[in-house]
């Protein structure tokens, strides 16, 4: 991927991310404001009205722009880019964005017009479809399995339901013009400020849905009894939804970590059942610990198996950015060869005191050490023949000469290495003549130490 294309993708995804969030916020704002204004219509708030109509304007402009874009796309015949933010589904696009109430009032007018316009306002609630669609897209494109997003959705649902019930509970009293047996009259709250009345209504809804039920505010007439029954049932469902979501959130926390350590547990229990010694068990355990700390339990190659080669090269270059500069081959290789090597190299993690290669083995490839240190030893001597560290490589001589290894390489600590398998080496050598030059340059840096080993009769 070129730098320009990368920058484009980044910009596009950031912009759509921001847009999605804005539309979700605006959609929610609409839902809260519209229902609030519907219930408390007798006490109009200038602020909320201005806010509501500003949001309307934003939706209207967006729907208009979308229409223009779609027309452009149709005429040019290009595919619609995926993932672009849409405030709501296209079917409800105009329904949710046109302020029908204002249009209706303008056309019809009069008391009858006002009453219909009031109901037409509720059409804006179709924007809620856009809110949940937006949340789904956020989850799909940005936050797979994110706990924060799911908590966010839970809070939105709970808040919306409580708000709607609050508005309706207030309406039971207001719609009948505050009869003497309504809860609001009995509480003596008629005439209090909108905020106080809203709070009181919300208080009853919360105590009822959470099954606390203090009993200080109670239903008093048929309508209120019926609505109270409804709230109790909704409350139980809401309660179940909250519990279920919380439970699934807890079980989904650190899903990958749990899966990794479960695998470790399986391996350990197998080793125990086969009576493998504690020493080996401890080594296995420390290997897995290292794998988790350094690689989050994932071998680069198993992870990248699914990706197409071009994307694999991009991801590998980023993943291995700390290690690659240590490998001389990559310092000298031109881009095409470098990419070919990247997808061919096999990453290895060798635990301390384990052998990277053993004396007498047939050459199977070239090993590049990217991190950690190892010693060259032979079976006939206790002495360390050479010390290998990050940037060193071996295995080329045995491969080219077709001989067996004259010594072993043992890791002193955790060693991160890459193996270029013999078959890959032959293949790349055949298709990239420049490999020879690159290897020569790299070899010149280590000629003295290799010469020292060869003089001792050790080839690796």
């Amino acid at each position, binding site marked *: 991927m070129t730098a320009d294309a990368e920058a484009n993708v980044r910009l596009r995804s950031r912009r759509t991310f921001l847009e999605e969030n804005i539309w979700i916020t605006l959609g929610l704002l609409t839902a809260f404001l519209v229902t609030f204004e519907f219930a408390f219509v007798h006490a109009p708030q200038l602020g909320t009205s201005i806010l509501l109509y500003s949001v309307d304007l934003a939706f209207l402009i967006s729907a208009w722009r979308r229409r223009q874009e779609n027309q452009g796309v149709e005429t040019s015949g290009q595919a619609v880019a995926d993932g672009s933010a849409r405030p709501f589904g296209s079917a409800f696009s105009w329904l949710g964005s046109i302020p029908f109430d204002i249009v209706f009032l303008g056309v019809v007018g009069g008391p009858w017009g006002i009453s219909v316009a009031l109901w037409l306002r509720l059409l804006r609630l179709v924007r809620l479809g856009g809110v949940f669609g937006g949340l789904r897209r956020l989850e799909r494109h940005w936050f797979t399995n994110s706990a924060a997003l799911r908590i966010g959705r839970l809070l939105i649902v709970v808040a919306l339901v409580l708000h709607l019930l609050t508005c309706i509970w207030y309406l039971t009293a207001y719609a009948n013009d505050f009869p003497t047996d309504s809860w609001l009259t009995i509480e003596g709250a008629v005439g209090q400020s909108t905020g106080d009345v809203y709070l009181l209504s919300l208080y009853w809804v919360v105590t009822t849905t959470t099954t606390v039920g203090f009993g200080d505010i109670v239903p008093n007439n048929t309508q209120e009894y019926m609505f109270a029954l409804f709230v109790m049932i909704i409350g139980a469902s809401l309660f179940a939804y909250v519990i279920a979501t919380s439970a699934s959130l807890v079980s989904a926390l650190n899903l990958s970590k749990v899966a990794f350590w479960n695998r470790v547990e399986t391996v350990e229990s197998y080793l125990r059942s086969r009576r493998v010694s504690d020493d080996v068990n401890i080594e296995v355990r420390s290997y897995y610990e290292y794998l988790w700390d350094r690689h989050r339990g994932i071998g680069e190659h198993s992870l990248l198996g699914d990706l197409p080669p071009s994307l694999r090269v991009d991801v590998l270059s980023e993943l291995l950015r700390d290690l690659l500069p240590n490998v001389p081959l990559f310092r000298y290789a031109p881009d095409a060869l470098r990419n070919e090597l990247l997808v061919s190299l096999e990453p290895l993690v060798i635990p301390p005191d384990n052998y990277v290669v053993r004396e007498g083995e047939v050459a199977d490839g070239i090993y590049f050490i990217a991190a950690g240190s190892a010693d060259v030893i032979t079976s006939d001597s206790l002495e360390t023949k050479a010390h290998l560290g990050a940037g060193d490589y071996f295995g*080329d001589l045995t491969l080219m*000469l077709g001989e067996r290894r004259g010594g072993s390489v043992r890791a002193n600590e955790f060693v991160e290495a890459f193996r270029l398998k013999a078959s890959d080496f032959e293949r790349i050598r055949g298709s990239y003549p420049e490999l020879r030059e690159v290897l020569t340059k790299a070899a010149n840096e280590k000629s003295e130490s290799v010469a020292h080993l060869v003089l001792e*009769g050790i080839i690796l």
Partner: protein
Amino acid sequence: MNITSETNGEAVVVRLEGSLDTTTAPTVQEALDGFVEEGHSLVIIDFGPTDFVSSAGLRILLATAKKLRPSGELKLFGLNPSVLEVFEMSGFSTIFAIFDDEAAAFAG
């Protein structure tokens, strides 16, 4: 392995015919050691007739180069492509002076 040599003052040109491997290496080593002991400061090896060089061969070449140092020098020429590749990719082309032909080896 057939070893022939040609003395030219301080220099000696050694021709190695056949494979330089584990079995032939001791004979070659003996011959090269002899030239060093005779006081030749420049040993030039003609690899033209050599088919193959194993690690044992590399070892005696390195040993001879070491013995000749610091006053003397080991030069090689006429390496076939596969042998040259081994020398280059092992980094030994920096340890030995490698030339295309005999004249270049003398001049270089």
